[in-house]
């Protein structure tokens, strides 16, 4: 065993050119695999984040005729106990209204939140480019597009007409840009009380919204939430059910990314295997003499397994280093005009470790054919043929 190892090491050292070539081959394979894998993962996380990062991932909505939830405090409590993965719980009072300004009347959506909680989901505060969040009743923030169209500035008063005809004046405390024009155009955001007033729903809400720690687990979490909820006449929705198309797109991307990675690794495996097989032929004289001197067939084949193992480890280490180099240069050089990387890359330690282990296992697997050749080699062939 140890002899096989030391012979393997000596063979690798004495065939330096060949060793370097194989190690380079493996490491390029690992680097490409790591780069593609991390890039696709980064793309997907990025896509999911922009799509659902700043929106509720699970919602409880009423199904009764009034479209309101009375006992929402209970809903909040039950959501909290149903899963540890639920975060950023918030209630909302939503309803249509009209924005009456100098030249026209525009339909808007009144959205009332307990702003501290709603902010955690939607990031209002971050989106403010002027002024501040509403702090009391009859204050509101509106989006960039709406503000520009209606020529509204911070501290202006705006006139909102409720669906029942009542009119209320709200003070604009801030202007936001949430990077989604349909929101910017229509959402008038207030505290809960103001919205409840305008919509005439008393102390009730029209929905309970929340986010989760593991976005891809949202469907399961929603299911257990639905099971826990004791409220009548509500339904639980989650983003996955509402974004099937996005999900199947992501899935297709993952599958093709895995295919690429697998093919890269197969190419590497074939490469190592053929080079090691050649090296058995090159070393057949040595193997023949070792066998004549009584080395066991098992040790003779271990020589090549150890070579595969060492090449795999070296290749994996170098490949991971190279892969990181590629990723770092990609995030440094492929940047948006504002300096942020085009695709923010997420380094997934598990994935890195997996590709390393995979490379080592591949290299060892690749060494099995040469190991067999070596085990089957008959010393007499070598001895006779000089």
């Amino acid at each position: 065993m140890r002899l096989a190892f030391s012979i393997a090491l000596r063979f690798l050292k004495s065939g330096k050119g060949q060793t370097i070539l194989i190690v380079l081959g493996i490491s390029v394979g690992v680097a490409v695999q790591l780069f593609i894998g991390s890039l696709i993962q980064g793309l997907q996380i990025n896509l999911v984040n922009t799509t659902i990062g700043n929106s509720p991932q699970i919602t409880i909505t009423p199904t009764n005729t009034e479209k309101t939830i009375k006992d929402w405090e209970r809903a909040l409590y039950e959501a909290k106990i149903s899963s540890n993965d639920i975060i950023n719980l918030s209630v909302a009072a939503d309803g249509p209204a009209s924005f009456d300004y100098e030249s026209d009347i525009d339909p808007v959506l009144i959205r009332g939140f307990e702003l501290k909680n709603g902010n955690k989901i939607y990031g209002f505060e971050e989106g403010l480019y002027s002024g501040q969040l509403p702090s009391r009743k009859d204050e509101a923030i509106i989006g960039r597009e709406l503000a520009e169209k209606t020529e509204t500035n911070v501290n202006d008063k705006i006139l909102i007409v409720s669906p029942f005809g009542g009119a209320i004046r709200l003070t604009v405390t801030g202007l936001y840009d949430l990077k989604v024009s349909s929101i910017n155009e229509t959402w008038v955001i207030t505290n809960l009380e103001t919205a409840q007033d305008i919509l005439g729903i008393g102390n009730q809400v029209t929905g309970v919204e929340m986010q989760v720690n593991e976005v891809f687990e949202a469907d399961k979490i929603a299911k257990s939430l639905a099971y826990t909820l004791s409220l009548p006449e509500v339904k639980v929705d989650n983003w996955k059910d509402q974004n099937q198309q996005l999900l199947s797109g992501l899935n297709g991307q993952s599958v093709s990314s895995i295919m690429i990675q697998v093919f890269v690794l197969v190419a590497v495996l074939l490469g190592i295997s053929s080079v090691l097989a050649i090296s058995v032929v090159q070393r057949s004289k040595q193997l023949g003499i070792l066998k004549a001197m009584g080395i066991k067939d098992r040790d003779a084949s271990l020589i090549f397994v150890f070579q595969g193992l060492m090449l795999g480890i070296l290749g994996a280490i170098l490949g991971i280093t190279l892969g990181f180099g590629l990723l770092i240069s990609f995030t440094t050089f492929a940047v948006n005009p504002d300096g942020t990387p085009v695709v923010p890359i997420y380094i997934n330690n598990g994935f890195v470790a997996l590709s390393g282990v995979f490379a080592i296992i591949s290299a060892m697997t690749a060494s099995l054919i040469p190991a067999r050749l070596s085990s089957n080699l008959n010393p007499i062939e070598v001895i006779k043929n000089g």
Partner: protein
Amino acid sequence: MADIIRLKDINKIYGDKIKTQVLFDINLNFDAGSFNSIIGESGSGKSTMLNIIGTLDKPTSGEVYISGDRTDTLDKQALASLRNQTMGFIFQFHYLLPEFTAKENILMPYKIHDYHVPKDVDEWADELLQLVGLTKVSKNLANDMSGGQQQRTAIARALINRPKIILADEPTGNLDSDSTENVYKILRDINERYKTTFVIITHDQRIAEKTDRIIEVKDGRIHLDFKR
């Protein structure tokens, strides 16, 4: 004296479709501690016979005994350790491992059996280096030595496990006459000191004449068996 090597009714036939018989009913015994030579024309079957004795090749029929134990029926594993423990090989082409130094090559048969080399074995290797006159080049890689030095390294390597038998196939085949004389002296010296049995194939008449027994092979048969 006990027979350390015994060949009984050995036949060797090569090929499946076109059969070439190379050895015919060979019966041959070697005394322990004897110093023997095999001579004969090229193609007469000398190497084939030696390889069968050395368990590297199998007879088509017949029985082979080493120290009284039958070997032609053993499996590869058992043969490997038998070779490692009881035989030393010296081939015409030296067959050193070029990746290793002279001393490492000499220690290789020991390491095949036990990777850890104890002090006394290491000293024995140095002694062998001394015996074959290679102390100065002990750290040279195999290819960084002359042909004669490589051959002497191979001799030292054959001795490291103190085998009972040494099988040599034209050990001086490509050496000049001085080196030939030198190698022969070393072999003879070892034979006398350690009572090792030698079977040496040689083309060199002068070497053959100095051995205790000359066996001449002709067309796959023992043509002449001359003991002194």
